[in-house]
């Protein structure tokens, strides 16, 4: 029931015609604010303001009626700014639905339904089970570093202070996945095939990385377009190969969207895009053989990582807007005629501009943390390629 309400709320945020949007947002806001704690309310307010302004500005910049006003080098028009603000309001309504999902559909409630035997049930439930473990590991690491005098600064401006935390979190979560794979096989949940490499280990790693990516997206959900999940996908692909990267991307997107927006098919279309990013990261990792030797100059590795972060953001933006463009043209021409008339190039260009903050964030994060994370994984022993098990 709760899942259905969240699905309807998120769907309405997308398909409601513009005149109905504002009253709907008011009703939704009243409902959601009543359920949220102070911290979530602050996140919602921050998202609503920043999304509306960002969308307003970037939809206005370079639009078809541009030229009335100039903001710096960009020509903007009042009409386009209004359209942009409305897009921002729609995003705020969507975020309110997400907040409802996060408040109403905790992982704990979903778990019994997926606690069945076999691989599909394990994969479905693993991320839900792993999320609290990731949270516990993150909490412990944060406490340990705080106790030893490290100061964390909240928000994107304090991102640098979180770098010493990101690297060991990966190592810790993947170490635990390795240990848990023994328990998985012993409990008969993922039995080992005789003579095969550990299937449980492979799936435990996928679940752990997907849970990390989910946590990375949820942690910054109040900042439009900014997410830690690209970074997790990159590490998953480079460290464990293209198939693991693909699976992590797919599972992360599906899990986060189910948690946030219920069973909304619109969001599930983004899952293949993230899967593609994980796959490409894996292929790129094979080409560069990154972090395997540990001899690359740090400056070169940082530049390469920053480039990878920027490319992943651009690829996601282009692919996601292409899917949006196809969906709007074929499915929703009556509901959003202005969007339906917009050309592919215009939509993609505006999407790219909208993702500039995300691009900058990712480039900086990748430059600072990607190479140290890969090296730390290798040094800790959790990344050594698996030996063949001994036939009994």
């Amino acid at each position, binding site marked *: 029931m709760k899942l259905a309400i969240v699905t309807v709320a998120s769907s309405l945020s997308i398909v409601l015609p513009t005149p109905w949007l504002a009253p709907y947002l008011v009703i939704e806001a009243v409902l959601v604010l009543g359920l949220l704690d102070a911290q979530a309310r602050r996140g919602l307010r921050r998202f609503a303001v920043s999304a509306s302004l960002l969308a307003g500005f970037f939809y206005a910049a370079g639009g078809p009626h541009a030229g009335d006003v100039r903001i710096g080098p960009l020509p903007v028009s009042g009409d386009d700014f209004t359209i942009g603000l409305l897009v921002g309001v729609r995003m705020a309504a969507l975020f309110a639905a997400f907040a409802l999902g996060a408040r109403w559909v905790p*992982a*704990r409630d979903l*778990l*019994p339904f997926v*606690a*069945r*035997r076999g691989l599909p049930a394990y994969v479905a*439930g693993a991320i839900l*089970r792993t999320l*609290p*473990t990731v949270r*516990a590991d993150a*909490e*412990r*690491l944060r*406490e*340990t570093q*705080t*106790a*030893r*005098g*490290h*100061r964390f600064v909240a928000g994107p401006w304090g991102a640098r202070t979180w770098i010493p*935390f990101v*690297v*060991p979190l990966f*190592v*810790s979560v993947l*170490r*635990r996945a*390795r*240990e*848990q*794979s*023994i*328990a998985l*096989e*012993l*409990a*008969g*949940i993922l039995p*080992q095939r005789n003579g*095969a*490499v550990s299937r449980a*280990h492979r799936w435990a790693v996928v679940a752990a990385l997907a849970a990390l990516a989910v946590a990375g997206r949820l942690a910054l959900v109040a900042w439009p377009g900014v997410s830690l999940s690209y970074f997790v996908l990159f590490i998953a692909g480079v460290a464990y190969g293209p198939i693991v990267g693909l699976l992590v991307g797919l599972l992360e997107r599906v899990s986060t969207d189910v948690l946030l927006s219920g069973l909304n098919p619109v969001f599930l279309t983004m899952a293949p895009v993230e899967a593609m990013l994980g796959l490409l990261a894996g292929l790129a990792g094979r080409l560069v053989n990154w972090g395997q030797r540990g001899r690359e100059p740090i400056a070169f590795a940082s530049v390469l990582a920053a480039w990878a972060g920027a490319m992943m953001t651009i690829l996601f933006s282009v692919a996601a807007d292409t899917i949006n463009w196809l969906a709007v043209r074929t499915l929703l021409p009556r509901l959003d005629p202005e969007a339906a008339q917009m050309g592919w190039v215009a939509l993609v260009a505006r999407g790219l501009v909208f993702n500039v903050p995300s691009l900058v964030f990712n480039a900086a994060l990748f430059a600072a943390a990607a190479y*140290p994370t890969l*090296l*730390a994984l290798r*040094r*800790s*022993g*959790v*990344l050594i*390629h698996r*030996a*063949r*098990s*001994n*036939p*009994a």
Partner: protein
Amino acid sequence: MGATGSGKSTLLRSATGLASALPGTGVTGSFSTNARATGYVPQDALDGFLSFDAVNEFVLRLRALGRSLPEAHQEAQRRLTVIQLAERATVPLHRLSGGERRRLALAAAQVHDPDVLLLDEPFNHVDSAWRPRLAIDIGRAALRRLVVVATHDPSPWQEDSPRTLLIRDGRLHHDGPADGFDPARFPEIAIGPTAPWNTSPRAATPRLEFQAVTCELEGTRALEEVTLDLGPGLHALVGPNGAGKTTFLRAAAGLIRPQSGRIRANGLDTRAATGLVHHVALQFEEPTSAFFASTLRQELAFAPTNQGLPGCDIEARLREAISDFELDAFMDRHPYTLSGGQKQRLALASVQATQAPIILLDEPTQGLDAANRRLLHAFLERQATDRCIVAATHDEGLIGLAHDVTRLCAGRIEAAPREVTLRTPS
């Protein structure tokens, strides 16, 4: 049995038959067993859990055996009642106390009725009330299955155990009947009586003061109206599992903000968290999940760097900590590649490197063999003269050394600390 780092945990992991298929284990050779199923409880109980709370841990395992959801829930409740965790069924696993996690891990590993049960330090973090009970449970289990226990303390098993193995430097050094086995012949496991100290606190400071402190965690009152004033010396903090010992230490380190009351560490209110690293150092209960650096050197240097020390001072502190805990041979290794006892030494050395006047230790003797316990005792003896050391522990040897003992029960202080007394050699 065997010294820290002798290979006990590696042997148990290998006996699961699965370790060779995992990265980083370095296990080679062949292994065979006719066991239908195996149960394994690792040294860090959290590593063996598959879910996020106690009830789901059982439900998941029972569902894997083909039980229906209602049946699985009913059975899970029954099992939780047996291990007295029914009221903690939905508490996140990382919020359970160390002893509660250990009880749960032992019960969960037996859900699928294994033929072989492998237990790595099963008494770690378990309080004195539960130890005999767990020993009986494990003894019962051994009546119908093969049970292998890796331990530093053979005493609970000696009467019932048919066989004792001793590993030294990764090789089987002794294999014989438990009856007649004399631990005193093997220095690495001969713990022996703890030598009393000949020191007493000399200074008036530092002080750790709790004034009517109440802390709540996840809706549960973990500390209630705790008032305590501790000065220099070794203070043992004792009490059953779940009494609030770890919460006490985390609150003293400024990691938990009390709902009411005030905590002052060396005169500084712990709510003003900046600069606390100069005054308080905390060693966490499970060392593995508290490491974050890529080498031991970086791990040890983290706090002194945050204290703003110049490079030469940091080096001097590292040298002292390395020497005190005999870590010279491992300095460029990743902390995860150490054995349980070596990790514990690293955690203690990290505390030492801060040179904070208030030292908070959570189960500091866990995983330490006899030689390393002596190392720890010597360190504490040196530090206790002018530092305030609070050790949450179930180890009677360490409690015997303490200048005073504070007992916590259900978040309240049950017995006020004894007066600090000068101890003399017996």
